[in-house]
């Protein structure tokens, strides 16, 4: 009922955001440049780490390099602006207007993020060649791995948006971003597995990273892409993502209700 009633609004918000991507094309291109540099540096570092060997711990250098290239390439599409948007709206005192809409605020944010992502998709034609030049690209390990990757990538997007939203909603308490977000960025970035594949992490660290949701953003889909998990393990990898997507819906609902009670609309 409310979904039917709100759908046109979500679509319109998404459309407006697709257009914004083109207005900010400079940022969009800078993002690709940064991604290219990251992939380039990681490739150098990991080649050095392999020290001329073709295989370390049973994992070939080519597979690792493809993993790192894909992980950082897709991360470019998985950096939702949700928390930044929330902070900006709070700081400018505009949040009141967002809250006064007949459409729930979290759902407005998801619609925006979807628009952002769709607006970015055409950038594949720029970012893939860049990644091809600076890193190592290969097609998915198998047809079914490719299919599972698409599903996993979409789940990764959902989880990336959700995690970003939780962080953003915390600004209702702190009003401006504190060390909290920087800590999140640091830990979160590392724990996605986009810099170090989980299979190279020491056991204790890997266990921690595996119970956190961040690996769902990079490690899970990309390891599926390069064919690291066995066929049975692909299903359980997807199940972990589904688990987090559902759990985060509950977490967001919980945080959002409390955040709203704290709303402080600046100025006026």
């Amino acid at each position, binding site marked *: 009922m409310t979904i039917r009633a709100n759908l046109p609004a979500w679509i319109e918000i998404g459309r407006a955001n697709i257009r914004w991507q083109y207005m900010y094309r400079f940022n969009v291109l800078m993002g690709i440049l940064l991604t290219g540099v990251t992939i380039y540096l990681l490739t150098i570092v990991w080649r050095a780490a392999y020290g001329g060997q073709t295989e370390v711990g049973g994992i070939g250098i080519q597979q690792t390099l493809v993993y790192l290239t894909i992980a950082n390439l897709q991360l470019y599409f998985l950096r939702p602006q949700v928390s930044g948007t929330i902070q900006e709206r709070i700081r400018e005192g505009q949040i009141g207007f967002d809250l006064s809409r007949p459409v729930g605020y979290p759902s407005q944010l998801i619609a925006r993020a979807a628009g952002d992502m769709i607006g970015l998709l055409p950038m594949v034609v720029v970012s893939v060649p860049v990644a091809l030049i600076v890193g190592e690209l290969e097609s998915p390990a198998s047809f079914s791995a490719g299919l599972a990757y698409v599903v996993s990538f979409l789940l990764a997007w959902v989880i990336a948006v959700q995690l970003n939203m939780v962080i953003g909603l915390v600004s209702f308490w702190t009003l401006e971003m504190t060390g909290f977000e920087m800590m999140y960025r640091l830990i979160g970035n590392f724990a996605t597995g986009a810099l170090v594949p989980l299979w190279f992490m020491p056991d204790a660290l890997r266990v921690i990273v595996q119970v956190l949701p961040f690996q769902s953003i990079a490690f899970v889909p990309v390891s599926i892409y390069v064919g690291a998990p066995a066929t049975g393990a692909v299903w359980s990898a997807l199940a972990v993502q589904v688990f987090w997507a559902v759990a985060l819906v509950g977490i967001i609902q919980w945080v959002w209700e409390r955040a709203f009670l704290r709303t402080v609309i600046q100025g*006026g």
Partner: protein
Amino acid sequence: MPIIQVHHLVKEFRRPRRFGGRLGGLRTLFTQQYDTTLAVDDVSFSIDEGELIGYLGSNGAGKSTTIKMLSGILVPTGGEVRVGGLVPWEQREQNALQIGVVFGQRTQLWWDLPLEDSLRLIGKLYRVDAARYARAHERLVELLGLEPFLRTPVRQLSLGQRMRGDLAAAMLYEPRILYLDEPTVGLDIVAKERMRQFVEETNRERGTTIMLTTHDLADVERLCKRIIFIDKGRVLYDGSVTELKRRYAPWRMLEVTLAGETEDAVPPLGLPGAAIIEQGAAKLSIRFDPALIAVADLITVVIARHPVSDISIVEPDLEGVVREIVEAGEVRS
């Protein structure tokens, strides 16, 4: 039944005390000390459907805070509110559909979008179907003269144009209730007049209930029969403008222009309830109390004594009344 009911509404802002210096941010985060502001302090009133009331008070009196709670974007510390039968901050989404809000100091439009696109987005957000949208859009574009800048991004609009755009946005889905928080702030005389006309027509023709906040008392004189005056979060006066003026300034002024100049002092009138309080070269200012002497009688006497070329009656203005209330911190009974 009143459409807006407010009972003992209270809003206290609590802010953790800020600390400076090294690790000040951390101390701020974990401190138990707060600075509190009582922005709205036990406010009660009710407004009937179709009323147009002025919600007045000096800077920081608590007007915007009240309006934010009535629109459901701020949760009060205490008290009860019903707007069209709904508790605004609990039934937020339903409440949103029945109210329109304009904050003169901000815009609900999207800076980067052309006005037209902002309006379309609002239409979708408020579930306005295509036919209704077309009708409301046409009416508002015409009434507010939006045509010349419909395709202009909002960030490039002048203040007056933007404000008209904001009014259109708030009325696009034809809400029953309109909250206007300083809609005329910063507008020139022509734009102010256009705004007032729009507000008046909306109230008269559509029966929209309007709550208007403004520091321009000419807005109030022109538009509102009833005002609610608050100061430091408390209601000082709730009643008609006429009654307030009667309490403060029962006097009217009769401004008389004489046909010729006189050097001599004019003798006192000798009438009850009327006195000459100023005499210029060819001018007399007579203060009188309409309760004690009829205007017609006064004019007859003046004309009989002096050659008069022009005569006019001046009503007391709200400005002086409000200044007096604010200075005294209370309203005379």
